[in-house]
Structures are given as C-alpha cells and as structure tokens.
C-alpha cells in the first residue's frame, strides 16, 4: 500500500528527468501507473464489500505519532478508484493533448505528484499524514495552474488558488491539532470512539469552524469558491482531473470522513446545508451566464460541490447515500465534459460558446460522449445521473425541516445545471458547422476515447447500479453512517413524487434553455452583481489589507534610529516599572551605606555635573572633553574603592578614546540641536524614568545579602594554587582566562573592522570577483 501511494511520488521524481524518453511517443506509457493502481484498488473491492476494513501501517514519525496508517474502507476505496480510474483516462488523454510540449515531463511529474498526494490523502487514517497529503495536493495544483507560467493571468490564478486553499490548509492543521489534543489520538478511526466527548467539548465549535474553512476552501464553497474558475487557466487535463473530478472533492471527502466523528450535531448539519445549498444555487445560476466552456464547467462544478456539501449537511442515511452516488455521477460526467472541452479547444482553438457549433460533423465520437455526459448530467434515464438525482430528491423530501424549500432549491439547481450541461455537452455539436471549422478533424484516439469511456460508464452504471452498489456505494455509506439501513440502488422506483420532480427538472431545464438566452443586458447586470461577490470583496479586502500592512510596517519600521531606541527603551521601562512596582518593595540597607570623604563627594559631584554638561553642551569638542573628565572621575572612583587595576585600565582607555574621538572629529559638520523642545522633554522624561528605575534596582539589589562563595574561593586560592597575588589579574589570566582570551579576540576583530571600514572603499565598477 505504501508503494501504491508512493509510486506517484516516485514517478513524479523520475519523469522530469527522463528527458526525451518519455516526452515523445512513449509518453502514454505513464498511463500504466494509474492503470495499474486502478486495477490494484479494484482487487480490494471484494474484501471491502464484506465490510472488512483494511489497515496498512508504516512508521514515519512515531515519536510524534505520525505514521502512514492507510485505511481502506468504503469511502477511501471509492475515492481511490475515482482518482486512479479518472487518472488513467486523464494520463492517456494528456499524452496526446500535450504532445510535443517542451515541459511535458514536468507536467507528468506534477500530475503524478498530485495523484500520489490525493491517494495518500484519501487513504490516510492519521490526521497529520492526511494533512501532509492534503497540502501536497494544493501545491501540485499550484504548479499545474501556473503551468503556463509566462501568462500573468495563470500566475495570478495559481496564487489565488493557493492562497485560498493554503489558508484553508492552515485551518485544517489547526483543526487537526485541536482534534489530536482533545482526543489524544491522531487516528480518525479511533476518534470515532471519542465522538461524544468531542461533541461535548467546549472547543467543538472551534474545531468545526476550522475544519469547515479547510473543506470549503478546497471544495470551493461560497464564499471561498472564486479561485476555482480562475484555476481553469490550467491545461484541460488539470481542470479535468484536479478541478472537477478529484482534488476539489477532497473537501467533500474530509467532511464525509469526519461525519461520524463530528457530524450529527445541529450546528454541523445546518451550516453545511446552508452553505452547500447556497453555493449550489449561486454557482448554478452563474454558470449559465458564462461564455467560456471551461468557465461554465467551473461554475457547474462549484454547484455540484455545493450539492454534495448540501447532502452531507442533511446528514440522513438517504442523503449520504445520495451524496456517494452523486460523487460518482459527477466525476463521470464532469470529467467527460472537461475532456470534451479540451478536445474542442485543442482542435478549434476556441472555447467561446457562441462561436462553436456543428462539430458533430467532424468529431462524431466526441459528440456522442458529449451527449452521454449531458444526459447523465441532466439526470435523464437511464443514466447513473438519474439514479443520483432520484436519491437527492428522496433525501430532501425526507428532511425533517423545510423539506419543501430544500427540495425546491435542489430542483432549481438541477434545472440550471441541466442548462449548463446542454451548453457544454450538446451545443457545440449541434447546428451548422462554421466555415472556419471545416478543417477541424477528429483528434487522436487517446483523446476522444476517455470521454467516451466515461459516458458509457455512466450509462452502464445507470442501467446496472448493482455493479457498484455492494462493492463501493454501501461500504462508503457505512464508513460515514455505520448504522445505515440496507438500500438498493435502482433505476426505476415506479411513478412517484420523485419521478415527477425529475420530470419537472428536465422539462424546466429544457424550457429554460430554449427560452432564455443571456444577452448584453444580463451581462451588465452580472457585472453589477460582481460588486457584491466574494471575489470582489476579497480583492478589495486584500488591497485594504496591504495598505494596512504598509501602515503597520511603517509605524514600527520607520527608518529613524532614535525612534527605535525610544520604542525599545519605553518598552523596557514599562515592563521594569510594572514589575518593580508590583513585585518589589523599596528598601535601602543602611548597614551597607559607607561614609564619604570630601574628595569623593567632590569627584562624584563633578561627575554628575560633567555628565549633565556633556548632555547639554552645544560644542562637540567640549562634549568630548567632558567625556574625558567623566572617565577620569570614574577612574578616581575606582581608586577610592580599591580597584587599582580598574583605575589604570579606565584611565588608559579613556585617554585612547579621547584621542580617537579627537582624530575622527575632522571635517564633521556642525553639531546642531535639531530637535524641538517638546521632543527633548519627551526624551528627557523617558530617559530619566529609565535611569531612576536602574538606580532603584541597584539599591534594591544592594539590599539583598550577597553570596561571596566565589570570591572567597578566588581570594583563598589566588596565591596558594594560582601563584599570583593580584587577585584581579589572577582571575583574568587564570580563573577566568577564557573571558580574557575572548576579549582580546573582540579587540582584534574590532581593529580589523576599523581597518577595513576605513581602507576598503569599493566602487560600483569594481568588477573583479
């Protein structure tokens, strides 16, 4: 199983480097992989049909509890078959569609990467492994949407798609982190056991919201749907595979997978129903106004995804069953329609619905496939689509609340979808063949066969739903709804309300198609509507957000060093003040206060006065002279308090510093007071508060008893062990010699830096390398 999942990645890492080998005539060979995988997953059906669940475990990051735990149950098998099955067809299609493309290898690489990721995702039982694969699907989607990287629109769409799905991804990660935290396990299967705990947990809503954001972003639910039409910039195989059949269903998969864990809670069900219902209606409505084949398909896909979410929201056994069936239905017909679009685009060079007609004359098999897809789409018997639609109506009608409105929504959506289906599956082939398309001919069989196969499959499944009922549909239902009653898929239920609704749908749809032709008026109307669309709002928001980001960044990063210093010191001061006033009582230890001699007093007075002088003097040279005095006073303080080495060093360094300053001062401009008095008062206040805090802190620490153990050790052993009498020097060269050796290194580097800083002056045309 690990091999099955990884094979996609392995292929992905080989293909781009295979050079000409796989780029030319042999490119269809890559189809072997999905084909083989499809067969492999087919062989698993029998065991799954017996309600067996197969678990494959491979260690990966056991210390985090993250492993490749692949679970094959009905739901994952359903998706796996879809991924590999449609994958096979898409791979085959691609080999002809992209023939001669310089980057075909790269393309196959991304495609295989995607397939592997998708498989991994649906098979993972470990939430984090699932997440890993989830993100990989987003990334491979990013690369595929941006495949035509020289087009600005492509790049933008790829970015938008990744931004939305990526954002969703992080929410998914958050949701999973929370889930793992609450349940203490990373296995979804095991989480089902803690479902009750979860539902009662105060963070349930948070988990749910995070999960929803993730699922909605991936499955293009309103208001996160708008990336999907943009994603149509990708080559058609990508649109087929990722953006209609598989990847966009990842969100559906996620919701389905977590239904037994988190579902069956009013908040869960209602949210899904509302969002799904709105999305399906909204997108279906939009689809009929589009001119571009792919765009129409994109919106109808969104609508179908809405339908799936809607069904998940209803959450009843019937609804879930309907959902499973509809997934298959949709995968079959939508993939087919996309491939057909691809063929049309490939052969005629246009996707404009208004320019296309009469193509049946030049590409008969394709038009058959189109027709088949359309009737499945429209739920016309005897296709599998009809089965699916029946089930949908059955479930809406049985809804506990608002059955009527829900059913109405479903019916209206289906009518609109039918409209879209005709537009894409039938319209291009009917009517008169324009002059310009006379030269158009039937493409390579590798292109027309896949849609045809899909269409036929829809037909066969409609006629014989039993083929997948026991092996796939029921197990899938059971993995979502373990208590689901047995149910038989049938094409014919007899005359009943549901059949009536189907009829209404078909008739209504046809009527709409023939009566309503969107014109210019509608276009402007739609354009107005765009103003309130989530895409527009998101764009507006992102623009505003960027302004906010710029303002925020400027606020802190304004380039003025003194403002930086001010902010840092203010921050420190506030923290220090808060801590000092809340947690430290103010004491001065009188026992530690020593007397002063007059000289000491004078030196300290001079020190203080000179510091103030240095701050206020308008003359730079005087300030430097003052610095000399300050250093000298400090030197004297060291003398008074028994630090001869310090005094010496201080004086020597002070002298050197003064020399340095004096040498550097040449040619510096005038030293003016630039700041206004207000600013100076502000700075002065902050500095004073900070200084006062340091003074208080010093006195406080002085009050604390000091442990002199270390000192004692040094003074006792300086002579006896280290053979020196100047304890300070012994510390410097022996006890703490490491400090000194590092300190001279600092000096060395500083000198090197000074040398380089002044001597090395590069000019721009310094060409040498």
């Amino acid at each position, binding site marked *: 199983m690990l091999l099955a999942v990884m094979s996609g990645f392995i292929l992905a890492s080989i293909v781009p480097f295979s050079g000409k080998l796989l780029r030319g005539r042999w490119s269809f060979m890559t189809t072997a992989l999905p084909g083989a995988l499809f067969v492999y997953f087919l062989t698993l059906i029998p065991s799954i049909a017996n309600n067996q669940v197969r678990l494959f475990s491979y260690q990966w990051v056991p210390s985090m509890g993250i492993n490749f735990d692949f679970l094959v149950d009905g739901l994952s098998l359903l998706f796996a078959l879809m991924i590999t099955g449609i994958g096979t067809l898409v791979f085959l299609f691609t080999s002809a569609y992209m023939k001669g493309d310089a980057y075909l290898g790269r393309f196959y690489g991304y495609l295989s990467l995607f397939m592997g990721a998708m498989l991994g995702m649906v098979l993972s039982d470990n939430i984090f492994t699932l997440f890993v694969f989830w993100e990989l699907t987003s990334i491979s989607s990013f690369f595929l949407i941006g495949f035509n990287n020289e087009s600005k629109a492509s790049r933008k769409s790829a970015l938008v798609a990744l931004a939305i799905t990526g954002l969703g991804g992080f929410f998914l990660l958050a949701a999973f982190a929370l889930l793992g935290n609450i349940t203490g396990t990373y296995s979804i299967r095991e989480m089902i056991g803690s479902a009750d705990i979860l539902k009662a947990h105060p963070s349930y809503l948070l988990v749910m919201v995070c999960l929803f954001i993730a699922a909605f972003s991936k499955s293009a639910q309103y208001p996160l749907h708008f990336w999907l039409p943009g994603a149509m910039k990708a080559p058609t195989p990508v649109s087929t595979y990722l953006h209609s059949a598989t990847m966009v269903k990842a969100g559906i998969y996620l919701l389905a997978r977590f239904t037994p864990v988190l579902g069956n809670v009013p908040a869960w069900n209602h949210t899904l129903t509302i969002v799904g219902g709105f999305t399906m209606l909204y997108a279906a409505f939009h689809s009929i106004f589009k001119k571009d084949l792919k765009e129409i398909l994109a919106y109808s896909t969104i609508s179908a995804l809405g339908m799936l979410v809607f069904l998940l929201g209803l959450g009843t056994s019937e609804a879930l069953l309907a959902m499973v069936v509809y997934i298959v239905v949709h995968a079959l017909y939508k993939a087919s329609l996309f491939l057909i679009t691809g063929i049309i685009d490939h052969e005629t060079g246009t996707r404009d619905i208004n320019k296309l007609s009469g193509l049946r004359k030049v590409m008969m098999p394709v038009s058959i496939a189109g027709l088949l897809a359309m009737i499945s789409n429209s739920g016309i018997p005897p296709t599998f689509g009809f089965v699916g639609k029946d089930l949908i109506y059955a479930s809406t009608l049985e809804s506990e609340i608002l059955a009527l409105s829900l059913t109405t929504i479903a019916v209206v959506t289906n009518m609109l979808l039918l409209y879209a289906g005709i537009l894409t599956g039938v319209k291009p082939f009917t009517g008169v063949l324009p002059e310009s398309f006379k030269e158009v001919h039937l493409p390579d069989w590798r292109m027309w066969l896949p849609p045809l196969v899909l269409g036929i499959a829809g037909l066969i499944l409609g006629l014989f739903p039993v083929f997948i009922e026991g092996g796939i549909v029921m197990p899938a239902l059971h993995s979502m709804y373990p208590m689901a009653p047995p149910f038989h898929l049938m094409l014919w239920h007899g005359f009943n309300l549901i059949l009536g609704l189907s009829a209404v749908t078909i008739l209504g749809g046809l009527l709409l198609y023939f009566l309503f032709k969107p014109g210019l008026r509608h276009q402007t109307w739609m354009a107005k509507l765009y103003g309130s669309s989530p895409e527009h709002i998101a764009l507006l928001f992102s623009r505003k957000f960027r302004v906010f980001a710029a303002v925020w960044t400027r606020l802190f990063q304004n380039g003025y060093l003194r403002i930086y210093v001010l902010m840092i010191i203010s921050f420190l001061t506030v923290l220090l003040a808060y801590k000092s006033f809340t947690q430290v009582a103010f004491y001065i230890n009188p026992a530690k206060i020593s007397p002063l001699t007059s000289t000491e007093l004078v030196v300290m007075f001079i020190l203080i006065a000179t510091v103030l002088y240095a701050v206020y003097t308008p003359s730079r040279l005087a300030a430097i002279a003052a610095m000399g005095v300050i250093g000298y006073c400090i030197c004297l303080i060291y003398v008074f308090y028994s630090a001869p080495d310090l005094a010496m060093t201080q004086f020597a360094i002070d002298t050197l510093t003064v020399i340095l300053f004096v*040498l550097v001062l040449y040619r510096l401009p005038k030293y003016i007071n630039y700041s206004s008095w207000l600013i100076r008062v502000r700075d002065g206040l902050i500095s004073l508060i900070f200084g006062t805090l340091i003074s208080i802190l010093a006195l406080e620490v002085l009050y604390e008893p000091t442990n002199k153990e270390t000192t004692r050790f040094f003074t006792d052993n300086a002579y006896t062990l280290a053979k020196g009498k100047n304890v300070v020097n012994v510390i*410097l060269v022996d006890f703490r010699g490491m400090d000194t*050796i590092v300190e001279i290194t600092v*000096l*060395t580097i500083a*000198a090197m830096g000074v040398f380089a800083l002044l001597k090395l002056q590069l000019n721009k045309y310094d060409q040498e390398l």
Partner: protein
Amino acid sequence: MKLLIFRTTTIFLLPLLLLFSIFLLLRGHYLPGSGFVGGIIAAIAFILHAFAFGLKNTRKLLRMHPLALMPVGLALAVFSAILPIFQGLPVLTVLWLDEPFPVVGLIGSALLFDSGVYLVVLGVALTIIFTISETV
C-alpha cells in the same frame, strides 16, 4: 607636529614608556598592571611618537604593520591556552616552571598568555589609531 621641544621630549619618553609598559606586563600577576594596560601604554608610546614625528616615521620605527601584531599575540595566547591539552589537562590550565626566574619570579604559561594580550592590545590600538590618522 613640527615642534622641537615636543619632539625632543618624545625621544626621551618613548623608551621610558616602553620600558614602563613591559614593567606593567611582568608584574601584573603580583601587583596592579597587566598585559592589557601594558599594551595600551606601549601603544600610547608609539602614538605619541606619531604625534611628534608623523606617522611615516613611526611606521619606519615599528618596521611592521601593527595589524601583524594581532595574530602573533593571539597565537601566543592560544598556544598558552592549548598547552595543557598535551598534558591531558583542560585548556587554559596554567602550567608553571619549577624554578623561579630572577626579577620576574615564577614563570607560568599565564605570563605567555599575558604577553599575548600585550601584543594584541598593542596591535589593536595602533591599528585603529594609525588607520584613522591615515584617512583623516
């Protein structure tokens, strides 16, 4: 500065200061002073010379670029630090010669270390000051 009096005094002060700097280096272990202060005093001696006679002449007197003093000093210090490794002791363990040396007293690797400090500080101070005065 072309100052006769200053120059003449400097001629006297230069050896005096150098002598004094070595004195401070050698006695550091027993009394105030150290390689560090010694190095600075030595540097100040040369800086004084440079003030009096100009940088070129001081350069001539030194015969080497002060930059070169730093690696030598560092190498000396590091050498004294890693010496104990060969005796299986931790780095920077001070090793002592058994016999005291006249004038200086006991000689240990600490003195080697301090001499390294002296050279580095001398090199550093001179490099900085010379570089600056050259670019003025």
